[in-house]
């Protein structure tokens, strides 16, 4: 095996790991760094449950190799809350019952946060298309879309 050493930053923390180049960033986050919040629903970039940001860019961590993390800034669902304070999106997801089983929730949160950072006033259609790569099999998306709308409204009010 031609394992490689990688230095990266995950949720602001410096992290080093050694991995096989075939391992995805998702494999590395879960199995080597112990951050299991990102979920593997498909392994082929079709479900979005493993969504993270790499240098601020929303991606499926199953479509990124672990070795590509070298020198990057990775943000995962575990980094969304600030200490005990939940992000407004997290609050709204809970308040609006926008999760049933919750397996898609980490990916939805990472993706929706990324959207609201770019657009604090998305339309329903914009939210739905932005989240089209985040499959949810439980909710039918209704409550998820409402939670994102409510979070956007709060963020706008907070200025």
């Amino acid at each position: 095996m031609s394992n490689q050493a990688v230095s990266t930053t995950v949720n602001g923390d410096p992290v080093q790991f050694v991995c096989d180049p075939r391992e995805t960033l998702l494999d590395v986050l879960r199995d080597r760094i112990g951050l299991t919040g990102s979920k593997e629903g498909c392994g082929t970039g079709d479900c979005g449950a493993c969504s993270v940001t790499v240098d601020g860019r929303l991606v499926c961590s199953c479509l990124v190799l672990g070795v590509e993390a070298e020198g990057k800034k990775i943000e995962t669902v575990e980094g969304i809350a600030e200490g005990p304070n939940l992000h407004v999106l997290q609050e709204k997801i809970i308040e609006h019952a926008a999760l049933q089983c919750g397996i898609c929730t980490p990916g939805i949160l990472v993706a929706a946060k990324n959207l609201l950072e770019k657009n604090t006033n998305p339309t329903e259609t914009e939210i739905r298309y932005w989240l089209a790569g985040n499959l949810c099999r439980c909710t039918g998306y209704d409550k998820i879309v409402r939670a994102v709308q409510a979070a956007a409204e709060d963020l706008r009010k907070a200025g």
Partner: protein
Amino acid sequence: MKYHKPTSFKEAVALAEGAEGVTRFLAGGTDVLVQLRLDIVTPDTLVDMKAIAGVKDITRNEDGSWDIGVAVSGAEMTEHPTLGKEWPGLVEAMDLIGSTQVQGRATLVGNLCNGSPAADSVPALMATGAVVTVEGKNGTRQLAVADVPTGPGKTSLAAHEVITNIHIPPRGQNAADAYERFIPRTEMDIAVVGCAVNLRLDGDKIVEATVVMGAVAPTIRIVPDAAKAIIGTTLDDAAKDKLAEAVRAACQPIDDKRGTIEFRVHVAGVLAKRVAQTAYDRARTAH
């Protein structure tokens, strides 16, 4: 699998040339990683292109032409302030590939080199008349995008060759492009049929046109007869019917899990009419 991250194209070519077994270049990775995961292709050598200078650049040249780096993602094209104003069809074609997450990674070059007849960005890229620069052990060469794919999963590039740049000609006056695809859902599908149209007007009349069809033949196909059907017209209903007829005549699709032959041929005509109309309307309001 060995992973390399060269800092120049020369180094990339040398790595590819020296490698044994299967070599893959990693631009966005949205195809390479899926193939790896599904045990379709496990490369022996993976050459990551993203550390090479300039691969993330989108440049508008003085003559109005564009150079797009090989590691520019779909999201970066969509976010570019002016590229989409001049080439809306190309940008929307790229934007249709996969989810927001996939857009963060997928690239034009990756889409092209994957060799899929259903690739969304490739018909639009062909319709622009784009040319790629290819570097190999014997130096560099220019190649029309239309000459890159040779069959499903196949390209005309040699094993040691790598695309280093995509060049899109100047937009020019009174012209526009458009791309649309048919999928059963609204997102996340592979095109069942894809169509790109690039045209130029003189007044109300179409004077130049390129019509390109995806997913209806073993390779993405420029359809000269379809262009002929609308050149010299104001895209009236008769012209559109002729366009549809020409497009359908050029279709040689297959029956598969995504659509039937019958369906693809019919929808190819429908799409061509719709896309031509969009391009035409855009060109009318273009400067």
